[in-house]
């Protein structure tokens, strides 16, 4: 099984790229580990698509290089530019870009690797496009077209997947299933994915790494969990929905209540909605900063199932909202973030170093945990 963020393999994709596009200048160096999902996150117009295009070879940089594993794909200095079709990349464009003259099946098989043939049926049913196979793209709905585009890219068995907001326009369930599929895929086939999204929930669900882009520059880059703890980035990381993740081990299944018990590495336990993984499996739990309440001691007679003893590492005003503070908690060697109103913080007289109970409702855990 694949290990978590800690065990970052050597960089699979390594690029340093400079390009001037009109008034916009892109200047980014990025290394992406050889497996797992790297999310590109940034405002509209910050240069995410431009970066993907340079990596894919759809544009030539003014300067810089792109390397994938041991292959050099682009090197301006050496005047090297491997043509797109020999880069073995899968690209999901921001728009669907289906071939209008091929049926859906033809679109899917256009670049299909022979080895992917056995996955075809599964993928098609996962995407929910079985009944569309003989349709021409002109009549597909927006979301249907997107799904075909995703399937088309996945079936090429690429060495790197570049996905530009692939799941926009899909409904919640389908999105969830596809996210799970992608995660499973990165785990099974071990290819890196560079994933552009504006949706922090989506990113939290899928990404191991995060690259934060602003105005054509990389302003932060690293394991998602680390960046999620950085208050200075709260604003940029979607503020309201910020979340942190805890690593835990599956300890017990409670079939009666359909819950699973997990153990953090400091020994504390949590109850979460049932996770269908074998006992002993490592899981990552996404916990929204808003979903963590603090108490001096475990209250009784409430619906709270989970209280974690933690110590306060830091208390900082939210850069985003004058009414709240962000509290950084430490549980063993893991960290957790909570958001309180300033008033509550004052009334509870919270101080750095204090020990508190972090209250987390069982229902607050996304099923997205893995």
């Amino acid at each position, binding site marked *: 099984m694949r290990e978590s963020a800690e065990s970052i393999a050597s960089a699979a994709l390594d690029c340093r790229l400079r390009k001037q596009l009109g008034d916009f200048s892109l200047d980014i160096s990025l290394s992406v580990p050889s497996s797992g999902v790297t999310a590109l996150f940034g405002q509209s117009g910050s240069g995410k698509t431009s970066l993907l295009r340079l990596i*894919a070879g*759809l544009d030539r940089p003014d300067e810089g290089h792109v390397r994938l594993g041991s292959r050099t794909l682009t090197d301006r200095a050496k005047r090297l530019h491997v*043509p*797109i*079709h*020999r*880069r*073995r*990349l*899968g*690209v999901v*464009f921001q*728009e669907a*870009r289906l*071939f*209008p*003259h091929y049926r859906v099946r033809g679109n899917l098989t*256009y*670049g299909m690797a022979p080895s992917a043939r056995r996955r075809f049926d599964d993928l098609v049913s996962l995407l929910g496009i079985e009944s569309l196979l003989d349709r*021409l793209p*002109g*009549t597909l709905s927006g979301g249907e077209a997107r799904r075909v585009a995703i399937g*088309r*890219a996945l079936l*090429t068995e690429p060495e790197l997947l570049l996905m530009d907001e692939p799941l926009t326009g899909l409904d919640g369930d389908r999105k969830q299933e596809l996210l799970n599929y992608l995660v499973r895929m990165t785990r099974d086939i071990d290819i890196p994915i560079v994933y552009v999204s504006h949706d922090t929930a989506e990113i939290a669900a899928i990404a191991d790494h995060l690259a934060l882009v602003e105005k054509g520059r990389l302003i932060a880059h690293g394991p998602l969990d680390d960046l999620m703890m950085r208050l200075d980035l709260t604003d940029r990381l979607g503020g309201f929905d910020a979340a942190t993740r805890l690593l835990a081990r599956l300890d017990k299944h409670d079939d009666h209540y359909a819950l699973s018990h997990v153990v953090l590495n400091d020994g504390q336990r949590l109850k979460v909605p049932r996770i269908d993984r074998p006992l002993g499996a490592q899981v990552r739990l996404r916990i929204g900063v808003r979903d963590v309440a603090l108490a001096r001691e475990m209250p009784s007679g409430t619906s709270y199932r989970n209280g974690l003893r933690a110590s306060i590492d830091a208390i900082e005003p939210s850069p985003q909202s004058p009414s709240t503070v962000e509290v950084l908690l430490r549980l063993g060697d893991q960290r957790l973030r909570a958001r309180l109103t300033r008033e509550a913080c004052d009334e509870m007289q919270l101080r750095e170093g204090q020990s508190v109970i972090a209250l987390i409702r069982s229902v607050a855990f996304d099923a997205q945990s893995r």
Partner: protein
Amino acid sequence: MLSDAEWQAIALSLKIAGSAVGWILIPGIAVAWLLARHEFRGKSLLDGLLHLPLVLPPVVVGYLLLLSLGRHGWLGHWLYQWLGVSLPFTWQGAAVAGGVMAFPLLVRAVRLSLEAVDPKLEAAAGTLGANRWRVLFTITLPLAVPGLLTGAVLAFARALSEFGATITFASNIPGQTRTLPLALYTLIQTPGKESAAARLCVLSIVIAMLSLLASEWLARRARQRLQERDR
């Protein structure tokens, strides 16, 4: 209903116009693709040369063909020596003349359609591992079908009606190079043959109409396949 000579002229015309389109189709598409999708030195020159048959009076083109492809022409000489091929006075020569005259029309139409093909789709095909040839044959050309059809039908019509270059280069030999327009011309130059001329005129029109209808039908089918939701 039709006389033998008329049937002969019709058959010959179809054969010659068909061959003319046949031999220029591939080069025409290739040149159109070059012009539509590539930048290179001398592009304007090539573009200009292509249009010469359109710009010059056909008789002049025929004369130039004679100069180059005639048995004593620089190219014709070579053709005759090495391949034993002699074009003047043969239906093949008429097909060459028709093709040359039709070439710019074919190229222009195909080029126009190629330029309208969305390069985004070509790029997408590239990311799916298709090399430029696969892209050309699976994406670009199929999407340019309307232009290919228009180009082919224009070329066919032009070759079918070709007169000046043909008579100059391939002469007007019954059963060999006397196509419908040549036969028509012959009649029109003869006092009192107006009704016979009118017959041939109608014949030409019928043939052209049929080829046109066929191409329209094909184009409509091609378009219907691509129909999106906004019509």
